[in-house]
């Protein structure tokens, strides 16, 4: 048992720039609390900030928890940081990223095949932005490099896990709606 577990978690999440994972929480707190207690306290914390008259909140992201602003303060933040608008991915980069996300682990040649266009440059951009990473080589002629999406990819799109992406069925439905 830890006194004020919710607040302890709040402090830990607050000093983490990257989403704080349950694994790391367990490392810090040791055997003093069970995973269930931690989970309950986390849920309590999220609800507390959501309900509060506050500009910030705690959100689940990439398998962990992180502080972020609530929507609505964007114009003020951009003015402070002197950013005209947040940079968005180019159409090319986004398409390449989707292909990696749905086909990972995947090689450059496979991605280019799926898209029908050479994707070397787009992959490099995504690597630089840390939205994808090299995870090894494929046991195939030429032993090409193999790519996967990163935790940052999840956080960038506000996803908690790769399973949060629309399933094949959901995509099919989206396509039908569009064609209707």
């Amino acid at each position, binding site marked *: 048992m830890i006194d004020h577990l919710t607040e302890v978690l709040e402090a830990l999440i607050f*000093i983490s720039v990257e989403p704080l994972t349950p694994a790391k929480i367990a490392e810090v707190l040791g055997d003093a609390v069970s995973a269930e207690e931690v989970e309950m306290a986390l849920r309590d914390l999220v609800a507390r900030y959501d309900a509060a008259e506050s500009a910030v909140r705690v959100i689940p992201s990439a398998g962990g928890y992180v*502080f972020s602003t609530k929507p609505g303060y964007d114009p003020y933040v951009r003015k402070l940081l002197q950013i005209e608008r947040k940079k968005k991915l180019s159409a090319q980069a986004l398409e390449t990223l989707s292909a990696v996300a749905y086909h990972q682990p995947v090689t450059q040649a496979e991605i280019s095949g799926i*898209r029908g266009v050479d994707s070397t440059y787009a992959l490099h951009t995504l690597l630089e932005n840390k939205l994808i990473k090299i995870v090894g080589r494929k046991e195939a002629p030429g032993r090409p490099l193999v790519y996967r999406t990163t935790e940052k990819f999840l956080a960038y*799109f506000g996803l908690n896990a790769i399973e949060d992406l629309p399933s094949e069925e959901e995509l099919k439905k*989206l396509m039908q709606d569009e064609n209707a």
Partner: protein
Amino acid sequence: MVTTDYEQTTAAEGYQVKLEVFEGPLDLLLFLIKKKKINIQDIPIAVITREYLDYLGRKDRINLDREAEFLLMAALLIYIKSQILLPREQPVEPEIDPRRELVDRLVDYQKIKAACAVLREKEDEMSQVWRRTALTGPLPEEDLDLIEVSLFELAESFFTMMKRREAEDRRVVKTKEISMAGKMDEIVALLRERDHLDFLDYLGAQETLEEALIAFFCLLELIKARLVVAMQEQLFHTITVWLRKDGPAKGNA
């Protein structure tokens, strides 16, 4: 900085109605299928080929950097058309339908496009919220230069460093480059000291590739001058080097 095609389109067409530029051949094919209300599973190849070539000829709606890839698809369409037109004794079975592979690719690409739309929406949502990129408040100083690393960064770090170093001590490397005599002396001295030398190990211990190459040329020179004997027991195995006891080395001593 390379401008993305996305931005170019917007900038070039200003406030006018924005015409879509097709980024790749699959993009264009999907558009034509939708425009003609075609069942993707049963594409009239002749019709779609004609339309496709039409767009290709006009050039104004395709990303010209990708022209080669558009042409490749044109060739594939024409090939499929020719396959279908071949006289056959029996009707085409679905699994050997010459269109099969293209249809599969199109269906898969369509899914990726649908996923793109979903991700773009999420990106828009997330662009409204902000996370901190650094911590304020009192934190230990030494945390500041810490970073997460990937394999890509590891490799990049190495080659960037090598480039930097190359620029830094070009002069040092240069002096090393010319002093082949020095390298030869070093090899001979090593051999005097310990009888024989595993040459691959020796090459591996060289600081730069250039230095390793010079060491290798030195070895060839020493062999040619009959100062040393080199033996390789098997192809790709290490090379063992000895001083010649009976050669000019002795005579020089």
